């Protein structure tokens, strides 16, 4: 399980989970959404998107279901779970704490 935990410990997980905390999305949709929201500052590395999503599902932080798109293609939509929500909150708090401390050192004091 070490490999999975390592995969989830980066900031990508935080980004992905907060993207889908309001609505369920499929992979490519997340990439587009993130580019829009961050004004292209964050380009989700698509090579790691799916390993992270599948690991999140394995750890039960998200669930998935197949839905048929307008063009006939089947798309896998991911939705955050209660466990995932708790995880997101925890990671967010960690991130906020981290950011605050960095600001203290770099900007203030």
């Amino acid at each position: 399980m070490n490999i999975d935990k390592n995969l989830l410990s980066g900031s990508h997980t935080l980004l992905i989970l907060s993207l889908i905390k309001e609505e369920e999305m499929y992979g490519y949709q997340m990439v587009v959404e993130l580019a829009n929201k961050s004004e292209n500052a964050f380009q989700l590395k698509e090579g790691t998107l799916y390993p992270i999503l599948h690991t999140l599902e394995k750890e039960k932080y998200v669930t998935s279901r197949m839905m048929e798109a307008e063009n006939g293609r089947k798309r896998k939509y991911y939705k955050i779970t209660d466990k995932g929500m708790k995880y997101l909150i925890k990671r967010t708090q960690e991130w906020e704490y981290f950011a605050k401390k960095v600001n203290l050192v770099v900007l203030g004091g």
Partner: protein
Amino acid sequence: MKEKRNETNITDIYHWSHEASRYIRFKPDREQVYQELLAHLFDKANDFENDGMKREEAMKSAIEAMGDATELGLMMRKIHRPYLGYLWRFTQLLLVFSILLIFFVSKQVGGIGNMIEELKPQKDYWEENRDQYNNYNEYTLIADLTPTCEATIEGYQLSVPNVLHWKVEYEVEDKLYGDDVFKFILKAKHSPFLDAPRGIIERLTAIDNLGNFYTDVRRYGREPSIVGNLTVERLFSSQFEVWVNNLAPEAEWIELQYDFLGRSFRLRIPTVEGGDL
């Protein structure tokens, strides 16, 4: 590793998706991942085309954005380990198989309720009724034996666990009569798919050491005969109570005989102590 890095080699999105998913061992997972990656590349290439790129160019760009297919493939393999999948499949199959097996076996033995009934330890009919005969004064016990004779026929293992022989004396119009009351337990061991061997019991005849013949016909009266009744029917064994009517008083043993449709057996039973020696 013999393979070169595939970044420059794969330009087709179908090929790319195939390479990125082929290391996953459990087939349904592999198929799902293939479809998901393909859909993503498809959408991305479409967006590029809508921006003006030519199809081939669009596909190449989409693939470049995704990265190395083999690298992704190996990561996917680590994530989608098959044992949970196989374990689940195995448990499902096992469950279905067990249900079918129980259903099949229970049909053979007359239903599940019956099966449970028969597995319960049953009281020995013989033991329960033994005392019945000791209470009558006119009965004199001649022999209470436990022979070791055995025979096998048609999937049944036969044995005679107990033999009881009494002399009964009674008076009719001032005349004294004496009769021999002789009975034994015939036990048959069998697989749960077989019923009690009623057919065998109905066709039992016998001769004794004096050459007297005992018929299988149920005619209570003066004709020497053998008559059996089923008393215990269990999953793996059955028991019959067999009576010999008009046993010759001087007989020392009686040999059961069965001959039917080419199958036969003989079983020698002592009627007095040491009679079968």
